[in-house]
């Protein structure tokens, strides 16, 4: 490639725009002043300690993990076989069903959250936690259908047919032949759905109440009344978590395949 100075400078500026705000957060997590200041004075780890000592952060973190893991697992259990069925011939209304499975991405998150809250929590009196779980399941399912579905479409179905001719039942062939060949896309879809669920605000915001509040919801409510470096410290910890997940994805199947 020949040099393109103007373009490099432009791209550099865009990356600066993307990263300077996050870098500033990171720096403010270490300042000694009890309200956020930039540039910082002094240097301390006390805000990180404060994060771990804050019971509501810890509780909501555990709840977030629980909800996201359960919802994503449920989405996997229901989504993988569905994605498989949708790639087979002879399913009538295939494209309609597929759009229906993907529809939670088209419906705005606040609307999903609002309608679940109104119908399930208010009208049916189903416990809030179940509602939250269902909401997160709904937003996770499309990731599984899309990512696993596209890898199933690229899979050569004759390897499955070979297994049948060798005497394998259809179920056994699915388990022993199909699943291992789509394992990396299963992992990718799981990671994407998990990250998305963990970060979700609009759905969680409606389905929260006493004792039921995900970490982002807790953090958001905290920010509305507090402006202190504890927020920065928690942000840094969450960003570290993101980096670790990205590293895991990169090591197992490469980030390029996920996006």
């Amino acid at each position: 490639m020949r040099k393109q100075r103007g373009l490099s400078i432009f791209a550099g500026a865009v990356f600066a725009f993307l990263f300077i705000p996050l870098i500033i957060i990171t720096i403010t997590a270490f300042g000694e002043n009890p309200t956020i200041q930039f540039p910082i004075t002094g240097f301390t780890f006390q805000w990180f300690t404060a994060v771990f000592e804050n019971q509501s952060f810890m509780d909501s973190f555990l709840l977030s993990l629980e909800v996201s893991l359960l919802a994503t697992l449920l989405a996997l259990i229901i989504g993988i076989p569905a994605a498989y069925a949708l790639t087979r011939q002879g399913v009538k209304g295939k494209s309609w069903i597929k759009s229906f499975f993907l529809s939670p991405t088209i419906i705005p998150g606040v609307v999903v959250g609002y309608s679940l809250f109104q119908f399930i929590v208010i009208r049916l009196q189903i416990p809030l936690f179940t509602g939250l779980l269902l909401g997160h399941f709904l937003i996770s399912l499309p990731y599984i259908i899309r990512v696993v579905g596209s890898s199933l479409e690229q899979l050569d179905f004759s390897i499955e047919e070979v297994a049948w001719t060798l005497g394998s039942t259809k179920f056994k062939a699915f388990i022993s032949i199909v699943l291992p060949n789509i394992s990396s896309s299963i992992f990718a879809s799981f990671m994407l759905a998990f990250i998305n669920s963990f970060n979700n605000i609009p759905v969680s915001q409606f389905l929260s109440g006493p004792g039921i509040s995900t970490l982002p919801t807790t953090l958001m409510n905290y920010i509305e009344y507090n402006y202190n470096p504890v927020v920065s410290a928690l942000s840094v910890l969450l960003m570290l978590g993101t980096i670790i997940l990205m590293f895991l994805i990169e090591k197992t199947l490469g980030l390029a395949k996920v996006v």
Partner: protein
Amino acid sequence: MSKKIPYLILAPGLILLVFFLLIPLVSVIWPTFYNGTLSFDSYISFFKDTYNFGIFIRTIRVSIIVTVMCIILGVPTAYFIAGTSAKWRGLLMALTLFPMLTNSVIRSFAWINLLGQNGVVNKLLASIGIISKPLTLLYTEFSIIIGSIYLFLPILIITLVGVMENINPEIMEAAETLGASRIKAFIKVVLPLSIPGIIVGSILVFTGTLTAYTTPQLLGGNRNMMLSTFLYQNAMTLGNWEDASVIALIMIVTTLIVMKGFNLIANRIDKRGEQDA
């Protein structure tokens, strides 16, 4: 019997979707049309109210500005990334992906730090003597716009890099041998060929901004409501469920219209070679 198996496999997902997505949606939206008799009154009176209408217009306006800005910033950046070596491209894509996977609360919070009365931007401007009093940047439409660009720029870049990578580099070189400077070749060749990517990316940015909740909530304040924050306020603070439901349907319909509209534009522009030789 085996013909039924696919449907059996699909059934659990379908049932869950019907019960926990479709039925709740219908049950929420149906009353806005039917109140003893079928009518559109709720919608007419919603739009007649200038305050409500203002929020609707603001939401559309912000979404348009954010989409345009993301295209202006994202297209050259994506072109730059697509032109780098595989190693660099991987690194730059990871760097672009990182903010996308970072919680939107954190990403909005970052701009509170920057735009507040005592924030980095005001301090910087004051220190070089451009302003004497701090500017009101936070809790404005401007801060929602900046925050939303910040939120959705990465997704546009990533979508576009995927399309631009697949443009044969020889096509660009061919344009140059025919007398086009780099910029001209970019405008006349790369840009038209990137239209599908720009459309897909724009749909994501536009509908994303249209429905985003966190950013307008944290950066907009009460005087700069968007549809999503207005829906939440109606439902959870004011207890006005009828208006909340009306807003819900308006958001769904607007999203669908925007998607349909962009796809129509895409088909109009992307007329090349429908049938193969």
